[in-house]
């Protein structure tokens, strides 16, 4: 992420940092009042900054205004006595927020703490995701609905569920021990991975909207990897994976917004800068004695990013990676990828054989992925009748117009069919 992007999202990013910091000081039970106070401080900023200029430390300015507003809110609600006595001292002690380095450190720390709090097993993963987007990334309910392709009502429901869960856990929030934090690290990685894939796989027509979820995921993963608690090989591998995919994000569609096959993508357009960041992260992740799905997925992405062309890809290695991936994190989706890579490495028959011998769950069996891969491999085996049937089923099952268009134009005998490669190989796996 460029420096400029960080400045451009000043309000949204400060929102998350301020909410996290104030929640840490006052407790998660006040999250609604806290969110209102931060929102109010930002409205004030919009009022005063154009007249007075942007303050030298926008974060400290917003913090002071939100903090004072919060105190006056607390004065008007009932439990003022205990809270005020406890926190009023902070109000007068503004040296706190004047020490920029310390302030920034505490904010990052609070953000991560919120992330760990949200990622409790008792909180459903979709609520973890919505809570992260709302309270840490500063997206509104409407903006989240737009990005996750769900209704505002269900975003609201998930957010409320997360808040309710968090309020019930109030007593343990400040007492999350290092061990508990460590045990939640996989859940935190998982939600960041989801945040990234939501953006990356999104068929949203607005590239900026897709990319900002990816950038948020990277921002938080980076923050985590740079912290004491999150500095782990798995975290580095996850971040590497994100950078490899980010390097290719702008070549996934043509100028008409059509999805492009991995084979058709202009490899010169891949961001070498991101690839080299990813490579050094991947090297950093190669320590310790465990290997995670992120290591393997990053390895596969590296293989594609470093290969000079589609044809010269080391398919043997890609096949081995998918086998390993399916062993440590079994998913029928990995099997599909394995079949495609095998078809490239050996033959389409071998690819089909993998699918024939696998147990496929119902959700995948009626998805367009499944049909499209079958159609592709069957065409290449010249089993045209069966291939046509699968192609039709794939087109019918396509979830969005752009995927449907891709299938219609590609799933035709005459044009050669590699649609499955585009859909699967160039993507991180949905979970």
């Amino acid at each position, binding site marked *: 992420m460029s420096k400029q992007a960080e400045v*451009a*999202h*000043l*309000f*949204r990013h*400060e*929102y998350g940092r301020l909410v996290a910091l104030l929640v840490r000081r006052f407790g998660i039970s006040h999250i609604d009042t806290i969110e209102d106070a931060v*929102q109010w401080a*930002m*409205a004030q*900023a*919009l*009022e*005063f*900054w*154009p*007249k007075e200029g942007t303050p030298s430390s926008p974060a400290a300015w917003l913090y002071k205004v939100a903090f004072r507003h919060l105190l006056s809110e607390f004065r008007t609600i009932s439990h003022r006595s205990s809270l005020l006595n406890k926190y009023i001292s902070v109000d007068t002690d503004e040296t706190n927020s004047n020490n920029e380095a310390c302030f920034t450190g505490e904010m990052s720390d609070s953000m991560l703490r919120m992330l760990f709090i949200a990622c409790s097993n008792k909180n459903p993963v979709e609520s973890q995701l919505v809570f992260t987007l709302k309270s840490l990334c*500063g*997206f*509104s309910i*409407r*903006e989240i609905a737009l990005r996750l392709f769900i209704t505002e009502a269900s975003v609201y429901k998930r957010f409320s569920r997360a808040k309710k869960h968090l309020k019930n856990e109030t007593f343990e929030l400040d007492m999350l021990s290092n061990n508990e934090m460590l045990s939640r690290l996989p859940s935190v990685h998982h939600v960041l991975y989801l945040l990234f894939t939501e953006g990356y796989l999104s068929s949203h027509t607005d590239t900026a909207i897709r990319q900002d979820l990816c950038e948020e995921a990277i921002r938080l993963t980076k923050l985590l990897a740079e912290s004491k608690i999150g500095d782990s090989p798995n975290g580095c591998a996850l971040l590497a994976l994100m950078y490899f995919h980010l390097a290719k994000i702008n070549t996934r569609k043509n100028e008409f917004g059509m999805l492009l096959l991995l084979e058709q993508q202009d490899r010169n357009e891949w961001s070498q800068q991101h690839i080299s960041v990813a490579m050094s992260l991947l090297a950093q992740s190669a320590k310790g004695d465990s290997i995670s799905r992120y290591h393997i997925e990053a390895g596969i992405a590296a293989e594609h990013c470093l290969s000079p062309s589609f044809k010269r890809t080391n398919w043997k290695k890609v096949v081995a990676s998918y086998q390993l991936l399916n062993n440590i994190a079994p998913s029928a989706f990995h099997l599909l990828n394995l079949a495609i890579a095998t078809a490239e490495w050996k033959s389409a028959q071998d690819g089909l054989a993998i699918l024939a011998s696998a147990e496929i769950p119902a959700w995948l069996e009626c998805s367009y992925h499944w049909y499209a891969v079958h159609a592709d491999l069957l065409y290449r085996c010249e089993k045209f009748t069966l291939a046509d049937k699968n192609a039709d089923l794939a087109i019918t099952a396509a979830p969005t117009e752009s995927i449907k268009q891709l299938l219609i134009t590609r799933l035709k005998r005459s044009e050669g069919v590699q649609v499955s490669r585009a859909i699967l190989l160039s993507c991180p796996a949905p979970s």
Partner: protein
Amino acid sequence: MENNTYICILRSNTGDCDKPSPSEMELQYAKYQAWQKKFADNIVDMGNKLGATGGVVRQDSISDGPFIELKEVIGGYMMLSAATLVDAIDVIKASPMVENAGVSIEIREICTP
């Protein structure tokens, strides 16, 4: 030709509108900055926000303010410098302030003898 000075009186609907999201606010702030940069020569004083309460003094009465019977409340003012009223209107028309449906801005020349 010497420029004229204009006072711009900002009125806004008292009705509560939807709270903007942080992304909307950062977008609006970016627009403000771009607008101020573009019209730096015209903007004499960004003025100030006016408080929500006030008083109105008349020959025979003092009241709490004119707000009760008005749908639109004067919320702030600013000063512009422009050659003509049309130029001043153009500056305001380009500003992010008028993007809000509940806002109107009255522009009046400050007359000097």
